[in-house]
C-alpha cells in the first residue's frame, strides 16, 4: 500500500484522524436514522391509535389501581381465588412442560442431521436447517389459531403449536452446540475405529448435554409464557381463565390470576437460572 515500510508519525496520525472522522460520520448517520425512525414511527402511532398518547398516559394507572382497589375490597376472599385458579395454572405449566419435552426430542433428532461435523452430506444438512427455519418462523399463535379452528377448542392444538416452534428454535441451538463441540474426542474415537453412533455417544453427547439441558430450561420458561397466551385464545388453562375474568370484569380475580402468573414466571426464572448455573458451572 505504501512505498515506505516505515510510516511517519504524521501519516499514522492522519490515517487515525481520517478513521475517527469516518466513524463519527457513520455514528452520526445511524443516530439520525434511529431518531428519524423513532419520531416518524411515533407520529404514525399517534395518528392511528384509538386514543391519543397523552390521554392514554393519564389513564395508565387507572386500570391497575381499579383492580387493586377491588382486590383489597374483597378482603380474605381474595386468597381463596388464588387457590381457585391453582389447578388452571398447573394445567398450563404441564402443557408447557410436555410440549417442551416433546419439542426437545424432535429438536434433538433434527439437530443431529443439521450438524456439519456429524453428517457429511451437504444436502441433508441444508434440508434439515431449512426445515428448522420454517418451523421456527411461524409465531406459535398463528399455528395454534389455525389448529384450534380445525380441531375445536382443546389443549392439543396449543401443544402441537408449541412443539412445532420449540423443535425449530431448539434444533438450531442444539445443532450450533454440536458444531461448536471440540473435534478432538471425535477424531480420537475415529482413530480407534469407532462407529458413527459410538462417536456420537461417547465424544459428542458428553460435551453437549449440559448445554442442551440449559437451552431446554430456557425454552421451558418461554413456553410457559406462550402457553398462557395460547390459553387466552382458547387452549384452556390459566390463560382462558384470565380472558374469562377480564370479560366479566372481576377485578379481584384478575389480580389473583396475574399474581399467580407473575409468581410462576419469576420463580421459574430463578429456578432455571439456578439449575443452569449448576449445569454449566458459571453460576452468575
Amino acid at each position, binding site marked *: 500500500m505504501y512505498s515506505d515500510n516505515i510510516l511517519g508519525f504524521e501519516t499514522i496520525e492522519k490515517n487515525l484522524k481520517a478513521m475517527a472522522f469516518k466513524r463519527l460520520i457513520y455514528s452520526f448517520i445511524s443516530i439520525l436514522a434511529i431518531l428519524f425512525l423513532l419520531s416518524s*414511527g411515533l407520529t*404514525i402511532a399517534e395518528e392511528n391509535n384509538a386514543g391519543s398518547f397523552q390521554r392514554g398516559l393519564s389513564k395508565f394507572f387507572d386500570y391497575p389501581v381499579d383492580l387493586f382497589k377491588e382486590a383489597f375490597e374483597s378482603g380474605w376472599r381474595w386468597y381463596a381465588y388464588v387457590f381457585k385458579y391453582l389447578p388452571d395454572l398447573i394445567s398450563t405449566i404441564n402443557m408447557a412442560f410436555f410440549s417442551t*419435552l416433546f419439542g426437545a426430542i424432535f429438536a434433538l433428532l433434527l439437530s443431529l442431521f443439521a450438524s456439519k461435523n456429524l453428517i457429511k452430506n451437504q444436502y441433508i444438512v441444508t434440508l434439515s436447517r431449512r426445515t428448522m427455519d420454517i418451523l421456527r*418462523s*411461524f409465531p*406459535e399463535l398463528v399455528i395454534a389459531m389455525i389448529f384450534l379452528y380445525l380441531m375445536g377448542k382443546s389443549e392439543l392444538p396449543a401443544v402441537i403449536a408449541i412443539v412445532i416452534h420449540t423443535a425449530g428454535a431448539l434444533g438450531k441451538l442444539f445443532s450450533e452446540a454440536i458444531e*461448536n463441540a471440540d473435534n478432538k474426542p471425535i477424531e480420537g474415537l475415529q482413530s480407534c475405529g469407532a462407529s458413527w453412533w459410538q462417536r456420537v455417544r461417547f465424544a459428542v453427547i458428553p460435551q453437549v448435554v449440559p448445554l442442551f439441558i440449559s437451552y431446554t430450561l430456557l425454552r421451558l420458561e418461554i413456553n410457559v409464557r406462550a402457553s398462557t397466551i395460547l390459553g387466552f385464545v382458547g387452549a384452556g388453562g390459566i390463560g382462558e381463565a384470565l380472558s374469562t375474568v377480564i370479560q366479566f370484569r372481576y377485578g379481584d380475580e384478575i389480580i389473583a390470576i396475574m399474581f399467580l*402468573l407473575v409468581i410462576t414466571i419469576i420463580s421459574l426464572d430463578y429456578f432455571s437460572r439456578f439449575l443452569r448455573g449448576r449445569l454449566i458451572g458459571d453460576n452468575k
Partner: protein
Amino acid sequence: MEQVLNQNVIDAVDLKHKKHIKILIITGFVFLVYLIGSILHFDLPNLAKKWNKDRASMFMLDIYAHKDHIKMNWKDPQKIDLRFEGGHRHVYKDDPTWLIRNKNNQSTIVNFDNGGQFVFFPNRVEMRNFPNINEPFIFKLNKNGKPYVDGYVGKESMLPSWMRATENKVEVRPSLYERLQVYGSKVEVHRYELGWKYFWFDFDSPLVGKGFFDAISLMFNEDRVDPKISNFNLVVNEFLENEIWHHNTVLFAMVETLLMAILGTLIASMVGLPLAFLAAYNVTPLSSIRFFLRRLFDMLRGIDMLIWSLIFLRAFGPGLFTGIFAIAFTDTGTLGKLMSEAIENTDKKDKEGIQSTGANKVLQHRFGIIPQILPIFISQSLYYLESNTRAAVIIGAMGAGGIGLHFLGALMTGNDFENVAYMAILVLVAVMCIDTMSAKLRRLLIGIEDKK
C-alpha cells in the same frame, strides 16, 4: 502396590459409573412415564379423530383454489346469479366462457374442465359427462317442493358415496372441485379453479386479469389507460384498493406490526442501557439504587408481555402504542438485566488504563466499558428484535391491532381462508426478512468472529 492402587481406582470409578447409570435409568424411566401419561392426557392418539375433516379439507382447498357460485331460483329459472366466492358485491356482469345459455330449450350449461356438466332446466337439473360416472343423474322437486334424485326415491342408500340426499337438500360432490346443492328454493353450483384469482386486481378494476409482470410493464408504459392519472399511480391504487384481498389494510397492518416490534425494541434498548449502567456494581457505588433497579428489572420482566399488553390496552386502546409499550416495558427489564451483567463482567484493566491517564468517570465508562459491551449490546438487541417481531403478531391478536388482529378476524369469519393463508405467508416472509437482516447487520457491525 501399584496393582492394588489401580484396582482400587478401577473399583471406585466402576462404582461411580454404576451409580450414574442407576440415576440415568431412574430419570429416564420417570420421564418416560410422564411422557406416556401426558400423551394420554392430551389425547394425542386421537389426533386424527379430533381433526374436523370437512373444515380441514375446505381450508386446504380454499388456500390454493377459488370458487364461483352459480345460483338458480326455481321460481325464476331464467335468472342465473353468478358470483365470485358468493360475495355480496362480486357479481359477474358478463358470462364467462364456461357458462352457456341455450335459448331454445331454456337451459343453462355449467361446464367443468374435466368435461363434466351441470345443466339447469326450468324444472330439473341434470348431471352429465363426468369422468368415471356413467349414469346421468337428474334432480327434481316433488309436489311438496322437496328435492329428490330421479329414480332413487326410497332407495337413497343405493346412491353413490359422493352424493347425499336428505329431506330438504341433495348434496352432490363428484370431486373436490365440483359441488352441487339442490334445495327446495334454489340450486347452487360451486365451481372451483386453482389459483388466487383477482389477487392483483379485483374485477371492478379496469386492469382486471392482468398478472404481476403485465402490471409492471404497464407501469412504465406511456399510453395511459385512464387519461386522468399516470399508469404507475393507477396500478398502485388499483392494487391497494383490491376489495377482495384488501391489500391496503393488510399491508398497513403488517407495517404496524413491524413498527411495534422495531420501536418497542428501540425504546427498550435505549432505556435499558443507561439503566443497566446504573444497576452495575462497578459503575454505581450506591447499593440502594442497584437494588432498586434490579427489582425493577425483575418486575418488568416478571409481569409478562401478555399482562403488560392488557394493561396498556386499557390505557391506550387498540393501536400501536399498546404494542410498542408492552414490548418496550418487558424488554427494558430483560435487556437491562442482561446488560448490567455484561457490564459487571467487563475486564477492569481497560477502565484502569483510561483512569491512569487522568480521565474523569464519564470518559472512563465511555472508553473503558462501552467498547467491551457494545458487541453484546448490539447482538442482544437484534436478537430481541427478531423475537419481538413474532411477539408483536401475538400482542396484535390479543387486541393491540396490526396483522395479528386481522389474522384472527379472518380466521373467525370462517370463509376467507385464502386471506388467512395470505396473512400467514406475509407474517412468515416478514419474520424471515427481519431474521436475515438482523443476522446481516450483526455480522456487519460486530465482525465475522462473532459468528462461530
